[in-house]
């Protein structure tokens, strides 16, 4: 395909599609919970973790990326509850710290290979994805679907209204912490495909586009990953055809989809 061998194209395509599904699902959660900046904070935490991996020259920095991202999730939820601040505010206060740490780690990393390693952390390296990494993404998708199904009704109650959910006997705190944890893992794992800077686009844009089309939250959980897949596929094809970076092409496709959805949204029509 486009002059590239299938053993490169296939994992790249599968990886992009899986990230599209995963980010669409997580995006539906964070957009409705008004935690859009969460993806931003998590990706910077994952970036810092992966940068530490570069500094320490570990074989696979992904695990440190996951560890940092999950640690951020573990801190953010209780901190927001404890400080009685909006979680978005806490996220905003947290992310410059992780970004600064990431840059410090890169600065201290051994010079050999730092250029491509750091760039790959920031912008992703879809063409470098292996079938093993595709399997990791599939495993994470399976786990995410299991969590969503197992705690689906508690999540729905939380997404409707947190206070109403608490008032009807739902334990909202563990459910919202589970969301943070899930988002953290998905961000860290997906970062290899889209890069730390673009994962935010993949998480927020297809989900926000889905919210423009339907009022039924259950349909949004189908539409958001579907739009994530369309963005990933479109970005993938454009990138191969025009010789552009894949991560950036996927992000631009997502943005275009969001723009079109916002303009054509039936929700913007006045009720007559």
């Amino acid at each position, binding site marked *: 395909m486009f002059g590239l061998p299938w053993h490169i194209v296939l994992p790249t395509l599968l990886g992009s599609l899986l990230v599209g599904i995963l980010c669409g699902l997580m995006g539906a959660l964070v957009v*409705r919970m008004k935690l859009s900046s969460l993806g931003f904070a998590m990706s910077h935490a994952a970036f810092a973790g992966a940068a530490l991996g570069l500094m320490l020259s570990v074989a696979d920095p992904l695990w440190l990326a996951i560890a940092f991202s999950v640690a951020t999730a573990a801190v953010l939820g209780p901190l927001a509850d404890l400080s*009685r601040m909006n979680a978005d505010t806490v996220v905003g206060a947290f992310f410059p710290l992780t970004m600064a740490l990431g840059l410090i780690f890169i600065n201290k990393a051994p010079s050999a290979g730092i250029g491509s390693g750091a760039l790959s952390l920031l912008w992703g390296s879809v063409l470098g994805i292996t079938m093993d990494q595709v399997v990791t993404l599939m495993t994470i998708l399976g786990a995410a679907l299991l969590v969503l199904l*197992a*705690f*689906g*009704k*508690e999540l*729905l*109650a939380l*997404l*409707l*209204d947190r*206070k*109403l*959910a*608490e*008032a*009807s*006997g*739902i*334990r909202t705190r563990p459910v919202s912490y589970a969301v943070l944890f899930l988002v953290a893992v998905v961000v860290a794992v997906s970062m290899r495909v889209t890069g730390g800077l673009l994962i935010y686009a993949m998480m927020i844009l297809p989900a926000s586009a889905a*919210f423009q089309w*339907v*009022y*039924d*939250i*259950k349909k*949004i959980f189908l539409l958001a990953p579907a739009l994530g897949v369309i963005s990933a596929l479109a970005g993938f094809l454009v990138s191969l055809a025009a010789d552009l970076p894949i991560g950036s092409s996927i992000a631009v496709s997502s943005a275009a989809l969001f723009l079109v959805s916002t303009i054509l949204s039936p*929700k913007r029509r006045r*009720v007559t």
Partner: protein
Amino acid sequence: MEDPVVQLEAVDAAYEGERIATLHGVTIRLTRGERVAVIGPNGAGKTTLLEVVNGLLPATAGQVTVFGRSVQREGHWLRARIAYMAQELFFDPATPFLVKDVVTAAVYGRIGWLRWPSRADRDRIQAALSTVGIEDLARRPIGRLSGGQQRKVLLARALAQNARLLLLDEPTANLDPDAKLDVARIVRDVEKELEATALVVSHEGGPLLEDAERLIHFDDGRITHDGPMRALRERLLAMEV
């Protein structure tokens, strides 16, 4: 003597970060099927009382029991069986939930983890929509309904929940006169259907207060009157004289 549905014994309560308590030494006993109206000026502690009864705000002193269980210890279990209509709860137009899903979510707390509503639950939800008269709205987005219709949806949740205790905070506030009458009628139907005890907070008059058998007046977090509506009226008249 009949077991109380709600019992508060010398309860104090304060919001987090507040140095001054919002409720002071409140003692109340509600029995099955009673409708009790709670009135008083803004900031008197009316909403706080409801939040203390369902455990959303823990009492800082005293004991709160509902259906004989401690709210402090069994709050989640109890809240799944108490219908609470918060004063400020209105769904914005973009809310991505259909009416039926909003009503269905009322039973999620009761059925517990890793289970979905049974056939009986779904039948009860359907019956709730029908009793409240909003069957035709079931597939409509909740945020697209009027304030009065949204109040009806919340009352349908109480029926779906099979709640025996209704905590209604300004249920007819910001509604037009027709909608007020409509909501008041449905509250009566729901109370009757569930044989429920109702604690209704209001700072305005209207049909819901007129129907109350008992009236509690709050001022500055303290009960200044607890008795039949007529007794309060006589007392106020005497004060004017």
